[in-house]
């Protein structure tokens, strides 16, 4: 309880408010079985790994062009 109270103080709320927020958050999360069901439900429309990997590779390396056009400071 002392640890929970410390966390509540750190976030600037009362202990009861902190616990209420915690419960709200827990209630809004999908359970593991709900998450598994959602993955099955979305499987037909989900992006393929190839599609995503192409996007991700380009996004990961987007700093390349920005570096070319940015003058070094100092």
């Amino acid at each position, binding site marked *: 309880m002392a640890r929970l109270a410390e966390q509540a103080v750190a976030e600037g709320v009362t202990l009861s408010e902190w616990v209420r927020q915690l419960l709200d*958050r827990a209630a*809004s*999360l*999908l359970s*593991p079985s709900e*998450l598994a069901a*959602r*993955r099955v*439900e*979305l*499987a037909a429309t*989900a*992006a*393929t*790994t190839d*599609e*995503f*990997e192409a*996007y*991700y590779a380009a*996004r*990961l*390396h*987007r*700093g*390349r062009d920005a*570096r070319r056009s940015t003058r070094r400071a100092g």
Partner: protein
Amino acid sequence: MASLLAVADLGALLRWSGLVRGPAPQSTAIVCPDALVAEVIEYLRVRHDDRVGPMLSDLAGVEMAVERFYPSGDMSATLTDVAARAPTDLDVTLCSPVALAIKLGLPLVTTSNELAALAHAHVAEVTILGR
């Protein structure tokens, strides 16, 4: 053995949420830096041609699947260190899961070999999800 809690990069997060096919993280729950929310939205823009309805629907699904989005401002020094060590063209926002894994001492789950390499010496457990 699967970890109870792990940090996910963008690829692992989208698989975890069911938006991208392929093996999902085996963890019980995942956390992400909040900076990844904008990256998810950017991906959804491309995926749905800027149609806001499908974007919001998928975004809600992602938010309901993540245990916590950790404030990126709380790990700025760690992220700066990671960015300075990263290959020069690697995007800093997408490196933020590496910084979060270091900061929280949690395993990292990723679909990127580059992020795995960046994390390797500093994160005790790094899992690269296969295809």
